[in-house]
């Protein structure tokens, strides 16, 4: 099976054909915004990091920014820096270059101020947009698709309808030879032993358990015990009995395939099938990591509703709560509430989710894109200095 996407020089394929303006540091973020402003097909990353960071945090920021630049959803990249930051724009451009796309870098200091940098930058971006416009979509096998899965603003409908429906779609993507990404490690706690059993090898299972333990310890260090009082009295009154059950309700959106590998935040999968990325549960930090890892499209389930979107990837909002769908029609893409009314089965709804994924991968605009909802945030371990 195919979707219609854009073939890139490095052999990967995109669901979008965007020109991306990356501020290498928070100081040049406004300038990057002005460079992209009003130019259809150009987007910028609202990045506030890139300086005053040490060790692993600097690595995370670089990996994330480079991942966005190298994404197959991006046609060409302009990096706009200030000039004196730790993470130099040239360093980012050089790391994106192996993807074979055009990458340019500018600094506000060398280009002599915001106005001049904006003017020079806009000229470059307009050239890139003209080149991008010449490219046409072509059939791409589903085996080249990476589907990100995410849930946020969950309610009782999530574990019973939207997550199982997306789980069916995830299993179809894997059966077609594609890749599905599951993440949000704090949310798997309580069911990590079950996920580990589904790992391809014992070593992969061990990595999953270690990832869960790291987040659990981190929560405990800040005075929170995820297992204590979970499921909550409200969950129990609603019918949820065990922590496994609560966590599985969330995990089930990625389907039932074996877990091929565990990858770190914003890293690219090296295998196809179901892969696990170790990320926080913070919606935007998780979304950012999956897209930086090469995810070209995301299926996002919600019960209470959420407006968020990605700068460069379509994010499909799926809810099993009819009231949320009606109240937030401008944010919600797909209504699977008929599952809970007994008039649609989980496999039927899952097939509709799969069809929507193919349609959006092939160019259909999502609600988040229509609203220009382009959220971006990079996880960090330590405070900035």
């Amino acid at each position, binding site marked *: 099976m195919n979707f219609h996407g854009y073939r890139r020089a490095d052999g990967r394929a995109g669901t979008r054909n965007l020109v991306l303006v990356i501020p290498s540091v928070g100081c040049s973020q406004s300038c990057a915004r002005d460079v992209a402003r009003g130019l259809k097909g150009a987007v910028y990353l609202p990045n506030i990091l890139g300086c005053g960071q040490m060790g692993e945090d600097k690595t995370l920021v670089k990996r994330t920014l480079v991942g966005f630049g190298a994404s197959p959803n991006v046609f060409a990249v302009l990096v706009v820096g200030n000039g004196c930051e730790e993470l130099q724009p040239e360093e980012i451009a050089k790391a994106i270059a192996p993807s074979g796309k055009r990458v340019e870098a500018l600094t506000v200091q060398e280009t002599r101020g915001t106005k001049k940098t904006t003017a020079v930058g806009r000229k470059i971006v307009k050239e890139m947009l003209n080149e991008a416009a010449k490219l046409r979509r072509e059939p791409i096998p589903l085996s080249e698709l990476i589907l990100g899965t995410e849930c946020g603003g969950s309610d009782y409908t999530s574990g019973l309808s939207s997550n199982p429906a997306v789980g069916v779609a995830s299993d179809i993507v894997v059966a077609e030879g594609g890749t599905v990404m599951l993440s949000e490690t704090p949310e798997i706690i309580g069911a990590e032993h079950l996920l580990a059993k589904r790992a391809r090898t014992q070593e992969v299972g061990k990595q999953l358990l270690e990832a869960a333990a790291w987040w659990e310890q981190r929560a405990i260090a800040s005075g929170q015990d995820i297992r204590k009082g979970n499921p909550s009295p409200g969950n129990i009154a609603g019918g949820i009995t065990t922590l*496994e059950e609560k966590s599985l309700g969330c995990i089930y959106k990625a389907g039932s395939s074996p877990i091929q590998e565990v990858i770190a935040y914003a890293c690219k999968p090296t295998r196809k099938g179901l892969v696990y990325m170790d990320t926080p549960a913070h919606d935007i930090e998780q979304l950012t990591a999956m897209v930086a890892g090469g995810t070209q499209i995301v299926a996002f389930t919600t019960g209470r509703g959420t407006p968020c979107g990605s700068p460069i990837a379509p994010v499909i909002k799926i809810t099993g709560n009819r009231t949320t769908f009606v109240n937030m029609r401008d944010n919600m893409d797909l209504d699977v509430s008929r599952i*809970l009314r007994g008039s649609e089965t989980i496999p039927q709804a899952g097939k509709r989710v799969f069809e929507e994924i193919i349609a959006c991968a092939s160019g259909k605009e999502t609600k988040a894109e229509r609203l220009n909802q382009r959220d971006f945030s990079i996880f960090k371990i330590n405070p900035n200095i």
Partner: protein
Amino acid sequence: MRSRRGIIVINEKDNVATALDELPAGTTVSVKTEHSMEKIEMISHIPRGHKFALRHIDRGGAVIKYGETIGQSTEEIPRGQHVHVHNLASQSKGETT
């Protein structure tokens, strides 16, 4: 439109189903699986959103939802019985100390 007793079975391996409406004891529901259609009588009251056994579950047996083990039964659970904190316990590692 005729109202129906809504129940949901998430995965075909599951041995529990979730009631979408309150099911008083004595209510009979139809459970459709890929291969069969069977009727199950509730032998206790099932509140909305709660689980009941689709099959007899032995004491110490695995309770399966989402196709995975969500815990172990603490007593014998007959078909049609409410499955919750009184007869199902987590196997997840305990509270960390």
